[in-house]
């Protein structure tokens, strides 16, 4: 015994003495590891939450309430209270692009220019002194003012702002001290220091054309519209003569002077319309082909104006259906297509022409109703770039609406006097509302007025559409275009992609998993599983590329063959299986290794046959041309139903077979020899196939003869990039993940259950379905859910192969646009922090929530399954 052992004393068995206290290094590593793991765990949770939070943070401003706040020190006086006490009531006002200057038109034709901040009067012009103005119309967004005079003349005035940029040296020294954003008045204009340190000089320019003589009686109503053939003007005088004029400007090449030439005709109003009431409003639409004459009770005659200036009454509508209400305000909103109508009961509605069918004449319809306030609408103003509508009331209130989304954005109160004119600045950041006393300035903070939950998720009636629709169209070429940002088509597209890819991928993956876990040799399984899992590592962009550029054109060319192979391949596989089992047992054992080859041969035979039969099938079923047939141009729907019903019919027949047919075979077990049983089984299979076809055909005939055509819903016009192609490609992408999880779930079912079942005399198939699948069910479910999550989030395949048309059709032969593909397509183009940008983030958030929910459900189910299976 050595010395150490002796020192250890009694009780040491090994003769070694060990310290009972853990070493410092062990403790240190333990603590370090614990801290590190904690930190990483919490870190990853935080990282994921931050992604969600960031999305919410970007999206949230879409739903923040609008701010409408009066800037108290900026009140200008109008009318009586001002120094210009002679100036009568304001009829129109408009701001410049920078919200720094406002010009106002008054009932006598006076034009005043004020500074917006502070309300200082900068300039004053009377267009035509001495003649009293009897009719005024200004379309603020184009700066075109039409004036009608008591002497029966009219005049067009173009009001605009002249903006020039200068260096400090160009302007008097007094402006050198201006800091960025500061403003000072200069020669009836305004100087502002730009962020680039230049000086911007804005001045009002008024270009008044020479008056055009129309008649002798005072003009009472006038409106005009800019068309390709010049300015079309319609004016009505006190005697009831309607003047139609087309104005063209010609520049004198020597003097540079613009001269106006007018052509047109004079018409008697009573010849044109049935109603005899006095018109109180006259509006001409954007194209200059519809003239509306409205009376005080809302009765409105719609006149069609053709290119030659001929008028014909086409319809009469009642813009104010309420018999007690009187029309008090009528104005076009941006684009001069939609008409805002206000009455004295507070009714506020927007009308536009609607074509019920693509070929019918458009008819003016009341589309949006915005009335929530009970007061007399006295003024209407709309924004030049969006569908904002500002209504001013007699009680001094102003209320701001977004027309398309029906959203009420806010209101303010000027307290006394009716609102006579209001304006929304071009940037939609300022609002001016004038009563007879003062002109009040409001800060408007409504960056996303068109977004609300109902606009995103409910059908919206856009201008020019025959009815409310779900639409996604974020941009277009024209200025008056209104973005259509409904998430529904995108969600629909996502679900459609998911549905068709799962329809293809889920059964394949689950059955493959069942086959490998229950029927395949252990050794083969261990080789096959990694191979299928490797499929998952195939980049989806490659799949998408193949789908879009190889598969889509190919499937389009061989559509009938593809449809036929879906049915031929299973048939030949089953036929092969039935023939295989008729082989004598001895040769069967010998041939066993070659079984996959036999499966392959059966598959190839199925493909070959569908190839051969495609021509005749197309002749018989699809009247010779499957694409025309899908268009609904030729043939009957019976083939469509047949194709759709074949699979359910096969399932039904198969189900009946297992109940009844099995007894037929089983009972004969001992007496019959192998090939006889095989023949019996084969006969049963062929009979079932025939029964399936007959059943499907019968059901198809029933449905088709009762008037239902599958074309129009599940199948319709063929588009090359469609849900079928995506279903194949994305099915291929989701198969590995579903397969892998499902196989794990099935393999996790303990072998002793299989042994018990087989020991009780069950067939492997019965064992798989009655004993293995039920406990693995939640695992299979979770596999499906995770596959769903993958399909929902998948981008590249749908982006490349789905055509990206945001339409809502269940048609398998048409494309769609998914949330994810939409993000990939549009996010690079969206202006940061714009409505479009934030809506795209909302789409991302939706996607995030969808996949999050799917994965959570999958995980919850999996946990449940784990707890349950631990009892086994």
């Amino acid at each position, binding site marked *: 015994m050595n010395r150490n052992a002796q020192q250890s004393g009694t009780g040491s068995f090994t003769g070694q003495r060990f310290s009972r206290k853990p070493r410092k290094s062990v403790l240190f590593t333990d603590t370090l590891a614990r801290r590190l793991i904690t930190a990483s765990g919490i870190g990853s949770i935080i990282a994921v939450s931050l992604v969600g939070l960031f999305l919410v943070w970007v999206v949230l401003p879409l739903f923040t309430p609008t701010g409408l706040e009066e800037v108290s020190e900026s009140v200008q006086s109008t009318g009586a209270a001002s120094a210009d006490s002679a100036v009568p009531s304001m009829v129109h006002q408009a701001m410049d692009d920078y919200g720094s200057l406002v010009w106002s038109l008054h009932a006598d034709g006076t034009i005043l220019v004020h500074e917006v901040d502070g309300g200082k009067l900068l300039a004053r012009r009377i267009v035509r002194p001495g003649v009293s103005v009897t009719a005024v119309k200004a379309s603020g967004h184009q700066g075109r003012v039409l004036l009608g005079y008591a002497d029966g003349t009219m005049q067009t005035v173009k009001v605009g702002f002249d903006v020039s940029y200068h260096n400090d040296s160009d302007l008097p020294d007094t402006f050198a001290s201006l800091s960025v954003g500061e403003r000072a008045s200069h020669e009836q204009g305004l100087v502002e220091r730009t962020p680039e340190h230049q000086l911007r000089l804005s001045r009002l320019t008024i270009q008044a054309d020479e008056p055009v003589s129309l008649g002798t009686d005072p003009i009472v109503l006038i409106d005009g519209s800019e068309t390709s053939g010049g300015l079309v003007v319609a004016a009505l005088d006190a005697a009831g003569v309607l003047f139609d004029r087309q104005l063209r400007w010609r520049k004198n090449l020597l003097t540079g002077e613009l001269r106006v030439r007018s052509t047109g005709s004079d018409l008697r109003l009573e010849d044109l319309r049935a109603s005899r009431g006095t018109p109180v409003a006259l509006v001409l639409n954007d194209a200059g082909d519809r003239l509306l004459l409205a009376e005080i009770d809302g009765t409105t005659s719609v006149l069609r104006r053709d290119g030659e200036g001929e008028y014909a009454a086409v319809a009469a509508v009642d813009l104010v259906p309420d018999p007690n209400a009187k029309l008090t305000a009528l104005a076009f909103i941006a684009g001069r297509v939609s008409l805002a109508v206000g009455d004295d009961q507070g009714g506020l509605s927007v009308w536009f022409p609607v074509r019920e069918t693509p070929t019918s004449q458009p008819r003016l319809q009341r589309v949006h109703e915005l009335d929530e306030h009970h007061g007399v609408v006295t003024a209407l103003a709309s924004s030049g770039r969006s569908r904002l509508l500002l209504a001013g009331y007699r009680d001094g209130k102003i209320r701001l609406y977004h027309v398309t989304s029906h959203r009420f954005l806010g209101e303010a109160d000027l307290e006394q006097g009716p609102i006579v004119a209001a304006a929304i600045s071009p940037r939609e950041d300022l609002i001016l509302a004038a009563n007879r006393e003062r002109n009040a300035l409001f800060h408007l903070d409504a960056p996303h007025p068109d977004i609300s939950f109902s606009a995103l998720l409910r059908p919206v009636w856009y201008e020019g559409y025959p009815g409310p629709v779900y639409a996604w169209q974020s941009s277009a070429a024209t200025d008056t275009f209104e973005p259509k940002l409904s998430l529904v088509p995108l969600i629909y597209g996502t679900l459609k992609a998911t549905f068709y890819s799962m329809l293809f991928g889920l059964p394949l993956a689950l059955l493959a998993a069942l086959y490998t876990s229950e029927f395949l040799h252990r050794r083969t399984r261990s080789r096959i599983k990694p191979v299928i899992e490797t499929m998952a590592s195939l980049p989806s962009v490659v799949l998408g590329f193949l789908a879009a550029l190889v598969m889509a054109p190919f499937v389009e060319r061989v559509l009938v063959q593809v449809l036929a192979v879906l049915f031929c391949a299973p048939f030949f596989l089953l036929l092969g299986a039935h023939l295989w089992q008729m082989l004598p047992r001895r040769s069967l054992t010998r041939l066993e290794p070659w079984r996959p080859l036999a499966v392959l041969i059966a598959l190839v035979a199925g493909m070959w046959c569908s190839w051969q039969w495609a021509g005749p099938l197309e002749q018989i079923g699809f009247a010779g041309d499957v694409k025309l047939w899908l268009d609904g141009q030729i043939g009957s729907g019976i083939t469509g139903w047949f194709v759709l019903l074949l699979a359910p019919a096969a399932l039904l027949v198969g189900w009946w077979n297992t109940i009844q047919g099995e007894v037929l075979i089983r009972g004969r*077990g001992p007496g019959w020899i*192998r090939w006889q049983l095989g023949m019996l089984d084969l006969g049963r299979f062929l009979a079932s196939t025939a029964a399936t076809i007959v059943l499907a055909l019968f059901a198809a005939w029933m449905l088709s003869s009762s008037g239902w055509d599958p074309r129009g819903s599940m199948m319709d016009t063929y588009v090359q990039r469609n849900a079928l192609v995506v279903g194949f490609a994305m099915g291929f992408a989701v198969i590995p993940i579903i397969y892998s999880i499902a196989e794990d779930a099935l393999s996790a079912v303990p072998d002793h259950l299989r042994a018990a079942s087989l*020991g009780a*005399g069950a*067939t492997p198939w019965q064992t798989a379905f009655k004993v293995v699948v*039920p406990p693995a069910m939640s695992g299979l479910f979770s596999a499906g859910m995770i596959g769903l999550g993958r399909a929902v989030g998948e981008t590249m395949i749908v982006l490349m192969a789905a055509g990206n048309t945001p339409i809502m059709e269940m048609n398998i032969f048409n494309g769609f646009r998914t949330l994810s593909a939409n993000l990939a397509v549009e996010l690079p183009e969206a202006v940061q922090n714009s409505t479009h940008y934030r809506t795209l983030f909302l789409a991302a958030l939706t996607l995030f929530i969808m996949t999050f929910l799917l994965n959570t459900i999958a995980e919850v189910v999996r946990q449940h399954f784990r707890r349950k299976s631990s*009892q*086994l």
Partner: protein
Amino acid sequence: MTANEAKETQMAETKTMDRLASIAAGEIVETRIHPELAEEESILDISDFNLWYGEKQALFDVSMTLPRGKVTALIGPSGCGKSTLLRSVNRMNDLIDTVRIDGSMNLGEGNIYGPGVDVIELRRRMGMVFQKSNPFPMSIFDNVTYPLQINGERNKSVLRDVCEKALRGAALWDEVSDRLQESALGMSGGQQQRLCIARAIAAEPEVLLMDEPCSALDPIATTRVEELILSLRGEYTVLIVTHNMQQASRVSDYTAFMYLGQVLEYGPTARMFTNPLLQETEDYITGRFG
């Protein structure tokens, strides 16, 4: 113990060890079958049965008969091939790819391994109870009637009758008759094993195969299962594999002693345990090796 006796014992042991060593080296010994077995009516006739797992032979020239209506126990040290032999009877070994067999087993008239034998049908003629209780994750009722259900029996009253009869047979009826529709997984271990026995006897099998049915049970549950086996005697032919000598002696009529894939001795249990023909058997039973 005198020195002489001790020496004799030692010599006997040495002799035994020598024989065991030679068996291990590959010697095929003849099975010593007690004459009493010849008087029994045989239900299963195993002759010259060999079985290989791949290259490794697990059973060597096994020849024995199973008397009808009796309980036969297979004993022997671990790895001696008891379970393999048991599982060969209903061809559960088919599930293992590498298994190869030689020889014959005759159940009644037909050879179990004959050409054209429907394995599924064969298994339905036998019930099997495993080492670990393996109720299916379904209701007690569905568990017991499983063998009938997979055979296509859908008549509820038939199923109910069979269920009751089988559960009574397995001495479980009184405990579970009021919760037949509850999950079988909620039962205790002993109940689960008796449920498995009920399931095994539900289809009225010709032979009941039991692979160490009590090894995972506590003593009380074991007693109950043993009582059950005793009560099955006469009605069913039982082949039981056990590690527990006492159990073999308590429940079986006949006992076969196996060693390294060979049946060394086969005879009435009483004689096997008191007066075996072979020294090895006695040595094993008394615990000198194993």
